[in-house]
């Protein structure tokens, strides 16, 4: 599906991946995060193949896919506690702080099933924040967000990149960030 794709990302860089539907943007993200193995070529983290530094690489990345990966019967706080807790030791006040940062602290103790799609997306961003990962891989993170939510996400991305983080974002629309943005256009 994907051919001739080569990219490198340095600290304080954000790469915006664009392209028509079906050009393999999500596939590229899945290859980069290690969920898919490329038939040819390799993905490296600090020069080492991600297969050889799997645990280190996975603890340094936060991936937000199309699906929010939230359990409808659990609260946002419980969802974060169980998923972030697998990556690092985390306290409830820290998680509440992340939810507060993304504007969903008021919903922290409600079941996810009663949250709107936009609120769920904000919970996902709270999870990405709480993981404290170096590399963010975000697949259409602006979907379902209102303008305030989009502004917030843009601010969080800029903050992450300016703090020395890296981010790869698949998004249809232009990113207006207070940070350096590189672009990669995929075509059929």
């Amino acid at each position, binding site marked *: 599906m994907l051919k001739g794709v080569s990219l490198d990302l340095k600290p304080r860089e954000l790469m915006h991946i664009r392209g028509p539907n079906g050009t393999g943007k999500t596939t590229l993200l899945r290859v980069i995060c290690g*969920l898919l193995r490329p038939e040819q070529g390799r993905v490296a983290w600090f020069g080492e193949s991600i297969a050889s530094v799997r645990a280190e690489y996975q603890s340094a990345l936060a991936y937000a896919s*199309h*699906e929010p990966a*939230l*359990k409808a*019967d659990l609260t946002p706080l419980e969802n974060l506690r*169980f998923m972030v807790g*697998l990556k690092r*030791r985390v306290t409830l006040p820290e998680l509440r702080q992340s939810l507060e940062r993304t504007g969903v602290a008021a919903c922290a103790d409600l079941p996810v099933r009663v949250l709107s799609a936009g609120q769920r997306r904000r919970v996902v961003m709270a999870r990405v924040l709480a993981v404290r990962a170096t590399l963010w891989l975000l697949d259409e993170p602006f979907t379902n967000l209102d303008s305030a939510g989009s502004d917030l996400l843009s601010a969080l991305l800029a903050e992450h990149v300016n703090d020395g983080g890296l981010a790869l974002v698949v998004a249809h629309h232009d990113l207006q960030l207070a940070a350096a943005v590189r672009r990669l256009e995929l075509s059929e």
Partner: protein
Amino acid sequence: MKVGAWQAMTLVVRRELCLSFRRPEQLLQPLVFFLIVTTLFPLGLSLQLSALRDMAPGVLWVAALLSSLLSLDSLFKSDADDGTLEQLALSGQGLTVIVIAKTLAHWLVSGAALVLVSPLVATALGIPPEAFATMLLSLGLGTLTLSWLGAIGAGLTVGLRRGNVLLSLIVLPLAMPLLIFGAGATDHAVSGTSAAGALYFLAALCVFTCTLAPFAATAALRITLD
């Protein structure tokens, strides 16, 4: 600070138990099925108590196997559907650790629960109380083994839309030795003879699947994730 494998397993088991208790109908469904199936046999066959007692081990074990199968489909399915499986695979913990924790949690809410209600069913089927210890032990080993076998089947069928039928076709033939030796152990206990041989065989099967099935189920899940 990095999270160890044991802490990760504890966290996943707690998460699975929490999810199960939030959906009590999913928890109760296999138990109610078990109770209803075992109640149907004496009603349909109108047997004498002695004849019922002879059939009881087989009835009990067939019902337990089928009840356990009911909940196997959901072992990885909901996590795969909502993207949680990908997050678990990228959690920095080995996928095998996650598979072990999820399978043990599945056994706790399905197999162990069946074992706990089995004395009620056994009494209704005329199994003497002296045979309960052997019956409980054999069912405990059998349902745990079935959960491991089911994890392999669930891992292979998780990407299929109607995978539950295929899952049954994969797991039931593998479960035949369990049925033979599990029902045999209970039968020996009912008739007052030694059930040690059948129990040892069940224990060996349980150890075998506990040792190898997590790796097989992990490999099956990786195929789905790819």
